């Protein structure tokens, strides 16, 4: 069964090895490789604007994967993810500006620092669950946001801070075309790490904690350890994503990392599918492209009666904000398992086509 190109209709797994492969068939692996190769070619023919959107999907997708490991795989709720994302951004810039750490080292180090902060706020998580945890992370969000505004030595206070572009051996990744590859490499590495984590003993322990934590504890899984660990991992991913963001924009201001941004992260993983790694990427893409879609829609109706009635030009910002909330609600009510689930259904439909019954 190891090297089939399409899944046979009677799909019997006979060993754990076949059950936990990253790619179930050769075809799916080839497609994944093809996808990456296509992405590699993107800067050659895409314009700046679309590249910048892809880069956004890249670094936000990394951070969102961290949140999905925490929320989707471990079942812990966090409403403070953007604060960790912001911490990563500032930490990387600070390491580079203050201590002269080269940027390509500062990015992973920022991830490590953010992990530390995540573990501090994860400490209550070891004892809390559900609602109380959600509220504790809400507090973390506000405390960190306040810290950003206050700590001049770290964030530059209200002025924000400058982040140098990434340079390796004198080659500066300072344009969108160049930085695209940095984000792509980081994303592929982080996603492979994430997928592999879920195949290990620790990853299965996280899922067990989510599914039934009492049973998990009885089976000898250390709840405190895995809950805290999951917080740490999620903060690490957020930190890396944030650091990539900082060196892309080359400037970090303290205002961006609000609770609305945190909610957007949650939106990404809910739209993509809780507990699905590819879904995280789909959800992120959806969230990033949503404003574009709305822009296009508003252009379509501009000049018509709807446009004048709603006064779209001035209110598009509110509409955008509203659409985030609305999309989250609609997905939860109509498609609670997210885009990943829909994708699976499409695949299942074509698997037996045209004899689907």
């Amino acid at each position, binding site marked *: 069964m190891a090297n089939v190109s399409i899944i046979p209709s009677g799909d019997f797994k006979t060993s754990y090895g076949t059950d936990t492969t990253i790619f179930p068939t050769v075809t799916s692996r080839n497609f994944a490789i093809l996808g990456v190769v296509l992405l590699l070619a993107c800067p050659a023919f895409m314009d700046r604007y679309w590249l910048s959107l892809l880069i956004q999907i890249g670094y936000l997708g990394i951070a969102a994967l961290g949140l999905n490991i925490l*929320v989707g795989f471990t*079942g812990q*709720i966090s*409403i403070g993810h953007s604060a960790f994302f912001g911490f990563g951004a500032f930490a990387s810039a600070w390491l580079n500006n203050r201590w002269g750490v080269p940027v390509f080292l500062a990015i992973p180090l920022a991830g490590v620092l953010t992990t530390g902060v995540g573990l501090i*706020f994860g*400490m*209550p998580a070891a*004892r*809390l669950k*559900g*609602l*109380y945890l*959600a*509220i*504790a992370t*809400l*507090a*973390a969000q*506000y*405390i960190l946001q*306040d810290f950003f*505004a*206050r700590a001049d030595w770290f964030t530059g206070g209200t002025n924000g801070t400058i982040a140098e572009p990434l340079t390796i051996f004198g080659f500066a990744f300072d344009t969108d075309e160049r930085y695209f590859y940095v984000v792509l490499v980081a994303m592929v590495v982080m996603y492979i790490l994430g997928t592999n984590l879920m195949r290990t003993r620790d990853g299965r322990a996280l899922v067990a904690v989510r599914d039934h934590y*009492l*049973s998990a504890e*009885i089976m000898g899984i250390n709840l405190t350890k895995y809950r805290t660990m999951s917080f740490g991992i999620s903060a690490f991913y957020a930190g890396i994503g944030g650091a990539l963001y900082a060196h892309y924009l080359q400037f970090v201001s303290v205002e961006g990392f609000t609770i*609305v941004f945190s*909610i957007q992260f*949650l*939106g990404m993983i*809910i739209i993509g599918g*809780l507990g699905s790694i590819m879904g995280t990427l789909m959800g992120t893409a959806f969230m990033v492209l949503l404003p574009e879609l709305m822009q296009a829609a508003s252009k379509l109706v501009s000049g018509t009666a709807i446009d004048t009635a709603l006064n779209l030009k001035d*209110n598009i910002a*509110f*509409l955008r*904000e*509203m659409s*985030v*909330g*609305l999309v*989250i*609600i609609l997905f*939860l*009510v109509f498609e*609670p398992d997210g885009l990943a689930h829909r994708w699976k259904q499409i695949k299942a439909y074509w698997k037996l086509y045209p004899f689907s019954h």
Partner: protein
Amino acid sequence: MTLLFQLLVNGLIVGALYGVVAMSFVLIYKASRIVNFAQGEFLLIGAWTCWWLLTSWQLPFWIGFPITLVFMLIFGVVLQVVVLRPMIGEPIISVIMVTIGLSIVFQAAMKWMFGVFAKPFPQIFASPTLDVFGLQVQTVYVVSLGISILIMAGFGWFFKYSRLGLAMRATAFDQQVAQSLGISVRQMFAMSWAISAMVSAVAGVTVGVVNGVSSALSFFGIKVFPAVILGGLDSIIGAVIGGLIVGVLENMAHYVDSQWLNWGNMYEIAPFYVLIAILMVKPYGLFGTKDIERV
């Protein structure tokens, strides 16, 4: 010293309002086990509705205010039936996210309809300040304190003596038992949302009269969390006490900060530090029931 006393009084008054909002928050949680992240938006919607009736329609306060309450009643019921009822039985994360989504939608919608700037209420009381024990206190504050106490007493009576209140308590205690006694659990859920929306609107209008109406009102919904965590998520008395503590605490933090520390912004942030500290020591809040789980 006068400053300290003034801040203390302010803290108690604002705290009483926090207590009222926290109470309506706990009401929803107790009845339907839903943490309502859109509580602050209830204040916002209530305040804007009242403001709109008073300015655009030039209604006197004593007509506009009851209309606001009726509107909030209908609004609460509709919200529960349309959005929250399908979520029964879904995991906590989904329910939380739905209320968060609602809060974003409402907030954006309110900004869209009424703009981003604070708008003052028309004058309601004849004299703006009153003399209380030698302190100049705004009339609205005194009235709001009165209203808060009235609402709290009302809640006390409602849950202790009225038929509906008892039915709601029974539902909160055990839904199956309540159902077998002939209580409509669906109605109780809808009622709890309606009452909560109404009470929040009262608080919203009160704050709106004092500070003007703006989207800053919805921050009350966030401040509620330290209050209910202090009190425990499922204790109504705890919510009131928690609200008072948070109100006094933030004013005290502000005092300490302005006198000695000069860190700035302590007024906003101090309750959250306390929240984290409490959760580390007592994971179920000060008055909350500890979950005992049986396998």
